[in-house]
């Protein structure tokens, strides 16, 4: 098990390297000279040239990348072209906002989505099942900014229940979390429903019923635990996705999260910031997946034997399952 975790962490390294190279490469393709962006329009060509030299922008892409990576290995993720601040500091400043947002969204999705999914599965084809299916479809059928603005107009402007923008209190997170959870919520309902449908047809459920267990108990004690396994994986993956995918919601509700940070950095050609932030998101995503997988083994005894004998189960395989 210990070996397995170590192995998984080691396997993250090539992925992180790949991410950083890819981002470095894509960023270098895009037009715009970072030195020029920093100095502005009045700067003379010599000033710009001098700054380029200072920033090492005149070296070849490979040299720049190698330099960046060697620094990164020593723990220095570079300084932002734009602000001159250590990138890692900026990321750590931004990350809590995104983290809370993502946690909130996943929580809402899990807390509401799983029970609704269960009810839908247990009462398959009932009106409640149909309703929840339609609602989940509608939630995935509109872009996030639209829901965000709608919620803001309804709950912040008309009802005055929640503040409209900002991130300084718990209340501020309610609307953005709900907006962000739309997709995940729908996904949770659908995943729970389908795994639950599969589980309640299993033989062991019949065994449990034959023991005289009542329907609620059969669902709660038997089907649910089995059905939740894939749901947990999906929730974990969603969490990873939401960490970097909340750009639009963050900008609608003006939450200073990582998503907007990355997008702004892309726009300003701030390669170190973009690279480090995406690497950071990648690592966090990988670690979350790993945590989910490890927790998984404690929930599902069948997997434990697989992990104890470290037969490599790659992350992608896990996700595909």
């Amino acid at each position: 098990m210990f070996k397995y975790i170590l192995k998984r962490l080691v396997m993250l390294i090539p992925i992180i390297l790949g991410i950083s190279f890819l981002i470095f490469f894509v960023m270098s393709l895009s037009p715009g000279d970072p030195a020029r962006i920093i100095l502005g329009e009045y700067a003379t060509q010599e000033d710009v040239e001098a700054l380029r030299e200072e920033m090492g922008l005149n070296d070849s892409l490979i040299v720049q990348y190698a330099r960046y990576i060697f620094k990164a290995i020593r723990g220095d993720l570079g300084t932002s072209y734009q602000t001159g601040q250590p990138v890692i500091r900026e990321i750590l400043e931004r990350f809590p906002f995104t983290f809370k947002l993502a946690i909130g969204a996943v929580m809402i999705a899990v807390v509401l989505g799983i029970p609704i999914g269960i009810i839908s599965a247990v009462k398959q084809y009932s009106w409640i099942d149909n309703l929840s299916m339609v609602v989940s479809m509608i939630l995935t059928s509109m872009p996030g900014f639209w829901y965000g603005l709608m919620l803001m107009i309804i709950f912040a402007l008309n009802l005055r229940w929640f503040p409209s923008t900002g991130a300084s209190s718990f209340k501020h997170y309610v609307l953005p979390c709900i907006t962000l959870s739309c997709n995940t919520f729908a996904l949770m309902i659908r995943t729970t429903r389908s795994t639950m449908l599969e589980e309640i047809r299993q033989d062991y459920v019949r065994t449990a019923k034959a023991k005289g267990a009542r329907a609620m108990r059969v669902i709660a004690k038997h089907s649910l635990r089995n059905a939740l396994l894939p749901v947990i994986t999906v929730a974990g993956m969603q969490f990873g996705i939401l960490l970097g995918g909340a750009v639009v919601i963050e900008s609608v509700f003006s939450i200073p999260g990582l998503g907007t940070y990355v997008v702004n950095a892309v726009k300003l050609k701030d390669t170190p910031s973009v690279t480090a932030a995406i690497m950071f998101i990648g690592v966090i995503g990988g670690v979350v997946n790993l945590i989910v997988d490890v927790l998984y083994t404690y929930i599902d005894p069948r997997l434990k034997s697989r992990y104890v004998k470290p037969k490599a189960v790659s992350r992608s395989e896990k996700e595909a399952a």
Partner: protein
Amino acid sequence: MKKAISLALALCLLLTLCACGSEAPKAPEEEKDSAPAENESVLDTLDSGTEGEAASDQKPLRFRLKTEPNTLDPHKTSGTGDPQVIQYQMYESLFREEKDGTIVPALAESYELAEDSTFIVIHVRQGVFFHNDTPMTADDVVFSLNRAIETGYNNAYVGAIDNVEKVDDSTIKINLKYAYAPIITCLSTLSTAIVSKDYVETNGDDILTRSPMGTGPYKLEDWVSGDRLVFKAYPKYWRGEAQIKDASIIFISDNTAAAISLETGDIDVMTNLSTADIPTIKENPELQFVTGPAASQLLVTFNNASGVFADARMREAVYLCIDRQAIVDVAADGYGVVQTAPLDSVLVECPKDFEVPEMNVERAKELVAEAGYPEGITISMPTIDNGTYSKPATLLKEQLAPCGINIDIQLMERAAWDDMVIYNTNYELAIWALPITALDSDFCASKFLGANCGGGGNFSNCSIEEIDELILRGRFLPLGPERTENYLKFCEAIRDNFVVCPIYTNMRNNAASAHLGGVYPSATLHMYMYDYYWIQ
């Protein structure tokens, strides 16, 4: 055993995540619990150290800006807009632009400008303190001006300065490279803001990026990255402590969301109000709509030196096709003023009712044909990806189509556009809102100086001797009829050569709570929270 170790390891990973989560400089939720109203969350706790009575009638001010600055270092900031608005609260220069556009001495007690405008002697104001309570001296002024020159960000404003020398403890002398009349205006920009010499020298040159040290009315208390800047009135400010003691500048990137926040009372004042929201704001008795012309004009610019529009006939054709009012009506929802002269309308030298050729699509068509495109031509137009530019671009496309110029709008982000159009002039035609930070015609006219081609800010790539002469002449003419005459000639020269085609003057559309007094529009975004006060 192994099980325990691995479980512990998993928990460690989880904890690391949580730790990252709580490493925020301020964990907002915890503060919230005790705060009675959500509007006062952050500031309330910051207040706790001071006397309690102030909080009762002292509502904190929340000022919305669209974008967060990368740096608060005034000498390392370029361009116009939100970064300046922030710095005006914390920094001052030797002179200050007042709300009516006049320039008054600020950190300069008095000054003497040489007859021939080649040097200026400044008596530095005494009894001014930096936010660390150290007094400002002539040394600080000399240091700041030299630093501004060295950084290279602000050649437009400090380019004329040859050197700065300290005469005595309260007097400095600025020698100019050439006679330069607008020097006083230059010294009112933030590019020449006065910073503490000791502070910078002790803490290193980069310290000002996030920890400013100026003499302005507000002192920066906290910077919540991406969210807000928290200020506190500086009690020893030389003009007297600001009326509003606590203020923060909040960053809300979406204009619609910002307007909603203003209505819900989550912010008190905002810039960049979307024109679509103006009617709503006007209807709300709790809010006030504050507007005025901006020192920013939207214009169609051509690459005068190469490509299709190097041919003056093509540029003239565009002139003849443009319906300015239609663009104002749609792109600015009518909140804009048609502009014909290439000088910002707020400048004193801007000619009124400047005549331009009348619309004539037939003639435009002929011109395009004469220029060698009887079948018409398709041109790709780089356009910045926000409504300010894409809306007029859409209309321009419609208006130019009849004369045979088909525009292909190519949206791109600001940085790429700047690189393409402003720095490398690698384009045919584009739409730009040309802003100036300080009110002098020279700042506007200099963009057309032949010597500024290729990196000096001359985005139209025009290099016409007549225009160059007029620009250089304008620089040492003092305000007066002669200067006005000079700039009229300049405008005519630009028009006759069809260098750029002005469309309209943008408005500074601001909105604020009706309870906030002292809010006024500033053409150059000189917005001082110092002037604001609460109406009881």
